[in-house]
């Protein structure tokens, strides 16, 4: 068959009844692209000799090198069956699990699918996955059992054995389909029940609407009612093809039925029914009988079909029997070129014979045209599914939207029909490859022009040389050179511009028209995934079906022009003027408004289609950096493009400044990196493990040691960190740390207390709320009021009361009212508690109360007086919580209770501002009261207490400080106080048993029963913990829920897939922070511990490993020996 012209294809596109949109799905290496090659060859696009070797649709370099398909690509083929001409839009999809997102993009655009199964390997994990995907998208599959030649050549099966083998494979495939069917029925039932319940609830309100019959409970599972006979693959139904794409042959039962009915005189219909199955030919009676297996006879299929093929292979490949081959060729009516028959490789001859005898493309394309639905036959069920986003039911959509369903069903290409297009992915094309930029052969005239130009340039250059030469001679170069250079610059500039244009790559949308005619330059609405048609219809002016530029802004709705339309022909694109309904096409000019996928329409009533259903979610995270730091902007731009072009990749910038790329797997990652390097960013990049965050916290002293021995009381002293006590720092055994500033004017006493877990969670969850609270407090301190909505106020009150409920017990009496600040950054999960006796300061909840109407008279004045130093304390706390002492990571779940805070100043009492005097007096009196008590406890602060001046004096000093008279050698006093509070907090933290907190992923793993054990193995090795495990109803899949430290997740996906040969697919989502139970500073102390862990115990301490890792990364001191054993160093000197 010759090359099909573009005009022919255009004509075919207009008849949707004869259009088939289909994709090829299978497990990796089952021969999708090879089959596609044969189909492409049938259209004369590539030589049939090369089919199966060229892999025409694998247009990327790495696809060719690795031998796997990495993207879905489409091609339009023409097929003539009898009278009818068909247009087949074929989409080849990748089989590797990492690219299952590409499969989703392909499946969405199709009405049917060719599922390929390897005759040797049978049903593989990805086969199940693609069957599931096809099922979920409601598209009809047909089956191709490929690589039958391997049964003959590799496994050396007899035809009888091969028959049983094929039967088994068919059973496997049908089993998968069956389980999909049952799970769907069960699901439907569950949904129905739910709905019924909902209806019942609604019914309470509107009893009239509730039909009485709903009350009767339906006990049958519904399985019996639903018909599933249409679903299964069976050769006699005509939806199975047996093939060997590499050798170029394939057949369905019909073909053989026809051949043999003539020869044997049995009706074709009878043969068709009996050719597959337990039937045999009774030679004497010339009758077909049942029960071949029981009677030990050859089944019909073996006798009439397989034996023929087996003998052909035997003759051609195994025995190379020239004569027999000749005879066979005669009987088959096949002519082979002498070149092929003389070829030394028998495979060449074989494929030459087979591709004429049973061409695979004919068999497959016939089946496809016969069995798969055309765009006209789209089921209403599928349309409803596509259009009902989220949990919304189709019937709840606006009326206008429901009307669009008819447009879908009609699939008409009238001008009046609304245009509905779905874009499933964006792919990048070299601008050079676009048809409009392609080089055309030059006309005679243009050649002439060019010649002229070249001649001109040559003379110019000559002139310039002459001029400069003469210029040098005459020393007049100054006047001549400027005249020539600008021209030169200009041309260079132009060259550069054109080069840039050439290098620019454009996005083409991979799309399908569901209704209407798409024309070039047409304007359409672009529906974002969150677009709500009801809202859109309300906001848009009535009857604005035509898309105009001046529209009221509707959320998630954009407007754009389709600049160009393309016919997708594998690696080539052909430009089109218009595309009628039911076809797959490429659209250019959408890169501005479409990210990954979109729904386009001329009608605003169309809801966006349900998002693509991805089998694999992106879980492999890497941090990406440019090799040269100055190329950062290029990297960011490249990552943006990558995000647009890849349906499954995610890119994000983290708070740490890392650029993180999340991909579905290692192979996918490799492809993304290559893309970034060569197409999108065009710079050198490096990918590394992302930085893993930790948190630091303190816990209550543990009761047992590492070997679960009771600790008793002796440990208490040991727990306390060995802090070097100096004259400014004092530590008492209960964990209270007192610290004096370098100029001895202020002393603070801080104690660290672990917060209950629920409180930490609550604080973390309500970070935003706390931030608003903080802002309100800040505003109030300045005497302004920040308007907060009543909703926020209510939320804050709820937060407060919940905190009060959670913080109970003697220790936490009135704690909530005494909260001074949150940290770090003023809204984190740590608390600064004001336990200074008598020091009254407005709590963080203060603004709430005021809003309630309790206005305090002196609030403002008081605020201004304490502002200076109060703020310093808070700042110190913020600094301390931002980076903890263990490895400078933020703290979490720690409460710092300030139990002492005294100021004493050696300066003279100064006059005071009369306004502040009274308030601050009372304040400071209270502040200085506490030392007295503190002295009782600890002798060290006696000096401070003893020297304690009268409250007013201290107060005066405070004022004095703010007057700037106290500039001492230690810098400004507020700074000293900040440092002192920070240090005190850190020491207080260290006085308690400290722990690291690790970020945890929740990990959901779908796995079959046989690989369950390996999944557990991988989880265990990576410190994961299984939370629950349950069986999915109706299938044999298990769903395992586990938690896994983020630190251990690098390479997790890869490992689990390798170990389970792809049968388990994990998903990782960040969930929470968890305390690592081991103490990073722990060393074995008791006898039992020595016995259990050895002297160094370096294996047991996971927390220490994490901590040292972070410290080393940050360049902090790590307590590690440079050389483990001094004696074992290489002792040779250099000159020996």
């Amino acid at each position, binding site marked *: 068959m010759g090359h099909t012209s573009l005009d022919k294809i255009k004509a075919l596109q207009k008849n949707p009844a004869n259009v088939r949109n289909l994709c090829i799905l299978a497990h990796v290496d089952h021969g999708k692209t090879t089959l596609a090659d044969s189909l492409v060859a049938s259209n004369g696009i590539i030589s049939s000799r090369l089919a199966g070797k060229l892999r025409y649709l694998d247009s990327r370099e790495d696809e060719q090198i690795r031998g796997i398909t990495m993207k879905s690509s489409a091609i339009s083929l023409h097929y003539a069956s009898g009278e009818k001409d068909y247009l087949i839009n074929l989409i080849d999809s990748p089989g590797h699990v990492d690219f299952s997102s590409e499969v989703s993009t392909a499946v969405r655009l199709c009405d049917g699918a060719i599922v390929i199964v390897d005759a040797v390997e049978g049903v593989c994990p990805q086969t199940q996955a693609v069957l599931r995907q096809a099922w979920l998208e409601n598209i009809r599959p047909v089956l191709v059992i490929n690589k039958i030649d391997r049964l003959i050549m590799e496994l050396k099966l007899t035809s009888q054995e091969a028959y049983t083998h094929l039967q088994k494979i068919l059973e496997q495939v049908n089993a998968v389909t069956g389980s999909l069917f049952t799970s769907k029925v069960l699901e439907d039932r569950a949904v129905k029940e739910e709905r019924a319940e909902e209806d019942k609830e609604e019914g309470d309100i509107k009893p009239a609407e509730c039909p009485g019959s709903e009350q009767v409970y339906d006990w049958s599972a519904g399985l019996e009612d639903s018909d599933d006979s249409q679903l299964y693959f069976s050769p006699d139904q005509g939806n199975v093809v047996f093939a060997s794409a590499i050798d170029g042959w394939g057949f369905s039962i019909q073909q053989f039925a026809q051949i043999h009915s003539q020869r044997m005189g049995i009706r074709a219909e009878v043969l068709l029914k009996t050719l597959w199955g337990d039937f045999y030919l009774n030679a004497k009676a010339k009758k077909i009988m049942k029960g071949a297996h029981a009677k030990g006879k050859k089944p019909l299929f073996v006798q009439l079909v397989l034996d023929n093929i087996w003998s052909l292979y035997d003759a051609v490949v195994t025995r190379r029997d020239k004569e027999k081959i000749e005879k066979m060729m005669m009987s088959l009516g096949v002519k082979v070129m002498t070149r092929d028959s003389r070829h030394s490789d028998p495979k060449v001859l074989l494929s030459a014979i087979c591709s004429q005898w049973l061409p695979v493309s004919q068999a497959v394309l016939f089946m496809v045209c016969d069995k798969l639905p055309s765009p006209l036959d789209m089921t209403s069920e599928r349309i409803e599914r596509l259009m009902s986003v989220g949990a919304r039911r189709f019937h709840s959509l606006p009326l206008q939207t429901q009307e669009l369903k008819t447009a879908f069903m009609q699939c008409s290409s009238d001008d009046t029909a609304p245009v509905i297009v779905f874009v499933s992915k964006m792919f990048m094309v070299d601008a050079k490859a676009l048809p409009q930029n392609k080089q055309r052969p030059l006309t005679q005239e243009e050649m002439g022009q060019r010649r002229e130009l070249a001649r001109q340039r040559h003379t110019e250059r000559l002139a310039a040389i002459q001029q400069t030469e003469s210029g040098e001679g005459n020393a007049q170069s100054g006047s001549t050179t400027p005249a020539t250079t600008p021209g030169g610059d200009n041309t260079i500039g132009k060259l550069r511009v054109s080069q840039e244009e050439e290098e620019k790559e454009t996005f083409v949308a991979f799309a399908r028209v569901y209704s209407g005619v798409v024309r070039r330059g047409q304007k359409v609405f672009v529906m974002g995934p969150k677009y709500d048609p009801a809202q859109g219809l309300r906001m848009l002016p009535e009857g604005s079906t035509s898309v105009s530029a001046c529209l009221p802004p509707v959320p998630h709705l954009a407007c754009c022009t389709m600049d160009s339309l393309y016919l997708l022909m594998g690696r080539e694109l052909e430009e089109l003027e218009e595309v009628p309904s039911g076809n797959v096409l490429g659209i250019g000019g959408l890169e501005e408004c479409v990210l990954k996928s979109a729904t386009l329409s001329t009608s605003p009533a169309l809801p966006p289609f349900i998002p693509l259903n991805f089998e694999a979610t992106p879980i492999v995270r890497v941090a990406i950096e440019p090799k040269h730091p100055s190329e950062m902007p290029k990297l960011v731009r490249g990552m943006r493009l990558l995000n647009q072009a890849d349906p499954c990749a995610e890119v994000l*910038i983290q708070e*740490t*400044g890392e650029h993180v790329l999340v991909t579905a797997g290692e192979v996918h990652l490799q492809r993304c990196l290559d893309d970034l390097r060569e197409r999108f960013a065009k710079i050198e990049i490096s990918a590394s493990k992302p930085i893993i965050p930790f948190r630091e916290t303190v816990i209550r002293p543990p009761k047992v040691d590492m070997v679960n021995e009771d600790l008793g009381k002796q440990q208490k002293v040991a727990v306390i960190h060995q802090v070097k006590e100096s004259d400014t720092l004092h530590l008492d055994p209960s964990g209270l740390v007192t610290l004096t500033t370098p100029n001895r004017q202020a002393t603070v006493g801080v104690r660290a207390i672990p917060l209950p877990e629920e409180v930490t969670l609550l604080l973390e969850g309500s970070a935003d709320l706390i931030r608003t609270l903080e802002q309100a407090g800040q505003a109030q301190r300045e005497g302004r009021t920040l308007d907060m909505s009543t909703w926020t106020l209510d939320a804050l009150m709820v937060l407060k009361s919940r905190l009060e409920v959670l913080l109970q017990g003697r220790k936490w009496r009135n704690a909530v009212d005494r909260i001074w600040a949150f940290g770090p950054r003023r809204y984190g999960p740590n608390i600064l508690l004001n336990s200074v006796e008598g020091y009254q300061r407005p709590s963080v909840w203060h603004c709430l109360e005021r809003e309630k109407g309790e206005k305090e008279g002196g609030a403002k004045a008081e605020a201004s007086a304490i502002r200076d130093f109060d703020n310093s304390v808070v700042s110190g706390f913020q600094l301390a919580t931002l980076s903890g002492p263990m490895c400078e990571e933020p703290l979490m779940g720690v409460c710092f209770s300030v139990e002492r805070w005294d100021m004493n100043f050696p300066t003279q009492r100064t006059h005071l501002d009369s306004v502040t005097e009274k308030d601050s007096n009372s304040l400071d009196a209270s502040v200085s009261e506490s030392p007295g008590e503190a002295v009782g406890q600890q002798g060290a602060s006696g000096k401070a207490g003893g020297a304690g001046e009268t409250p007013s004096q201290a107060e005066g000093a405070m*004022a004095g400080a703010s007057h700037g008279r106290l500039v001492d050698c230690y810098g*400004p006093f507020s700074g000293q106080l900040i440092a002192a509070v920070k240090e005190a907090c850190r020491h207080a933290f260290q006085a308690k048993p400290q722990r690291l907190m690790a970020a945890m992923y929740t990990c959901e793993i779908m796995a079959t029963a046989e690989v369950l054990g390996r999944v557990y193995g991988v989880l265990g090795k990576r410190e994961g913990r299984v939370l629950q495990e349950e069986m999915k109803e109706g299938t044999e899949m298990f769903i395992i829920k586990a938690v896994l430290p983020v630190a251990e997740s690098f390479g997790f996906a890869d490992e689990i897939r390798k170990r389970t040969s792809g049968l388990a697919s994990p998903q990782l989502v960040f969930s929470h922070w968890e305390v690592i139970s081991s103490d990073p500073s722990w060393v074995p102390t008791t006898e039992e511990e020595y016995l259990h862990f050895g002297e160094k115990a370096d294996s047991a301490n996971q927390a220490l490993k994490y901590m040292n890792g972070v410290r080393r990364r940050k360049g902090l*001191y790590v307590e590690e*020996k440079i*050389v483990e054993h001094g004696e074992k160093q290489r002792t040779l000197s250099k000159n020996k």
Partner: protein
Amino acid sequence: MSIFTPTNQIRLTNVAVVRMKKGGKRFEIACYKNKVMSWRSGAEKDLDEVLQTSSVFNNVSKGQVAKKDDLSKAFGTDDLTEICKQILAKGELQVSDKERQSQLETSFRDIATIVAEKCVNPETKRPYTVNLIERAMKDIHYSVKANKSTKQQALEVIRQLKESIEIQRAHMRLRLVLPAKDGKRLKEKLKPLLKVVESEDFDDQLEMVCLVDPGCFREIDELIRCETKGKGSLEVLSLKDVEEGDERLE
């Protein structure tokens, strides 16, 4: 007359000598290489892993053991272990290769960490990663000085990096409250120090929220303190003005 014979020359290959002069005498001990710093930092707790032998020498390479009299005169004790510990703690030594290397590496990392903490990319207001800073430092061939503090060096690095990549110190967000009568005058003086003035509110007193370079903080503080005689105030709203949270690139 002795003939110098290289064959019986004893080479001290795995020996690090720690010297100390005390009481007019020189004392030396023989230690393993790369071990003394670990001992001093406390990472190594086993003295036998540090000392080759517990005897104290006058000259290690000549094998002259110190006399007991000298030792007890200089150290006031004749407990060799005690003396060794003293010499280990206070004596001078040649830092061995690995020790020096790890020291330089640590401070290089430390500098990079400080730079990464303090700086942002002015375009995105996001910090650079430590790795990237390290790479940039290598690109400009920055060499670590062992005798300068890392913080000092970090500031130096920031200055040098500005020439090769887009980097600047993260700004501090300050709130200034100035009394009305000083407001105008002070504002003029402050102008050159402020990078961005985010909001300005002039009713009974001048209130400004602005971004400043952290290097100017003290200057501004001083200015406000002295000029307003304590009536003006200055409050740090945030130490680093950076973008928070993760951003999805779209």
